[in-house]
């Protein structure tokens, strides 16, 4: 065991950091895109969103590998390709939850806000987004947990991350390597998920948590 850590310890540490870096970067970008697109979608007439949301869902079910393959063809085997793919996949759950969160804001709050003299922007920032926040963070959580596993794809083209260990382990039939890659990835998902759960509680005082 210690021999393993002597041989791979440093590499494992580096891989965890790289992995985490990809996750944080793509989820952050996904968060910004998802929230903005979710807001825009919620401002469209219901007819439009009734059409767009299912289309987006179908898009989301395209397997990551297929999407990545298409991106490779279009952009080449460069890190940006993987990052774009990860961002796009990180965006979906957040976009969808932002939209649902916003559309579930009860009318009485909107009417009260208008009646108080809030401008549409103030209503969005002070009332709608805070009320949709539990749902948005729920989406962020989903997106983060998924991205931890999708990031394994990054290793396919030698960009590092924990996937390296898994692929090497599979190709050399070395179970220890597989485990060395899988356990930190699983832990990462659990820990990030827990942090977001905590954040969700903190962000919504006086309300029941919604996921």
């Amino acid at each position, binding site marked *: 065991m210690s021999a393993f850590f002597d041989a791979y310890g440093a590499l494992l540490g580096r891989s965890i950091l790289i992995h985490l870096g990809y996750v944080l970067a793509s989820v952050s970008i996904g968060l910004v895109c998802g929230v903005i697109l979710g807001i825009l979608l919620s401002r469209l007439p219901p007819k439009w969103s009734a059409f767009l949301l299912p289309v987006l869902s179908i898009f989301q079910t395209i397997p990551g590998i297929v999407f990545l393959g298409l991106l490779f063809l279009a952009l080449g085997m460069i890190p940006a390709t993987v990052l774009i793919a990860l961002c796009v996949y990180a965006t979906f759950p957040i976009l969808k939850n932002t939209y649902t969160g916003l559309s579930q804001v009860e009318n009485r709050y909107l009417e*009260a806000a208008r*009646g108080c*003299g*809030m401008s549409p922007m103030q209503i969005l920032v002070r009332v709608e987004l805070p*009320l949709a926040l539990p749902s948005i963070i729920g989406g962020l959580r989903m997106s983060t947990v998924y991205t931890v596993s999708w990031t394994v794809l990054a290793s396919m083209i030698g960009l590092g991350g924990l996937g390296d260990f898994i692929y090497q382990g599979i190709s050399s039939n070395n179970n220890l390597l597989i485990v060395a890659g899988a356990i930190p990835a699983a832990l990462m998902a659990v820990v990030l998920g827990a942090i977001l759960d905590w954040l969700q509680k903190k962000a919504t*005082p*006086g*309300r029941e948590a919604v996921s």
Partner: protein
Amino acid sequence: MIQFEHVSKSYGRSAILHDLSFTVPDGQFLVLIGPSGCGKTTTMKMINRLLEPDGGRVLIDGKDIADMNPVELRRHIGYVIQQIGLFPNMTVEQNICVVPKLLKYSKEQSAEIARNLLELVNLPYDQYAKKYPSELSGGQQQRIGVLRALAASPPVVLMDEPFGALDPMTRETLQDEVKKLQKQLHKTIVFVTHDMGEALRLADTILFMNGGKIEQMAPPEEMLERPASDLVRSFLGKHTVSESAPIRAEDFMRKNPYKVSKDRGVLECAEMMARSGVDTLLVTDENDRYLGVLPIRNIRLYGRTVDSIVPLITKEVHTIHAEDDARETMEYLVTSQDNYVVVLNSDETIAGIITKNSMARVVADTLWGEAQG
């Protein structure tokens, strides 16, 4: 002063308001009443431009509000809706200070406003300011809803069936508070209701609407004396009966008070109180006989230490019998600290409850009845 000049409004082909003209002088309490769907809410929402008239104009202090910025206008008109609509993500204080914040009052000024207003309705600042709406009873929430509308001292306040969803006891308390606030602060209030009792108690002028037109506009006394139509008369209903002297307790008690059987759980009772916005439940034994009352205070203090509500019941409340002479009860309520007495049937089951408010209303009705006869 609010003026409606030949205001009309349609949705698609159906005309909702027809050539509506009336004036509300400064400091007046105007109550809009009428059958459901007659256009009360529509009329009210034109005053803060949540709706725009198709024809005619609405003026405030002589200025056509169509020329004003609607967002700016609404910051100077208080607005209370039936569904309360306190923002659940904000504390009581933040809710109250929504409009002051929009108007860029300083932090200190806003806090001062919240403190004073909470004081006005007997909710101590230190205890309530940092609470969230979900931690309050329905009655308390609507109090805060009213305070939110008053926070930036708007000269005009609109209230759309603000107390419709509250239990009768809380409703009467809030009516008294609103009337008091209006007198104290000299507000012009436009208040929508479908409850004639509420209208009679609150209004300086009642505007009775039907089918988008004015059926009658008059002070309560005049409406009681000379209802303009059968519809108005039917709304006035029991309020016009002129027989005097409701002498027995059962004549003016409130029936169906909130009661529970003594074998109910503590938690269940607490939930029931929260749901119905009351602070006391009447407790009965297995034969439905009156045992005592369960105040929320006892649940707060000891609720965690006991499994059953029995040890939390107190018998300190005054009881009378349904056929008893009511004058003693009145005497008792006026002179004691208690806010209510429990009325029992001859078999000791619960008949109802008499509060200071229900008593005052009967007295008022009796007086009007006599004035009329």
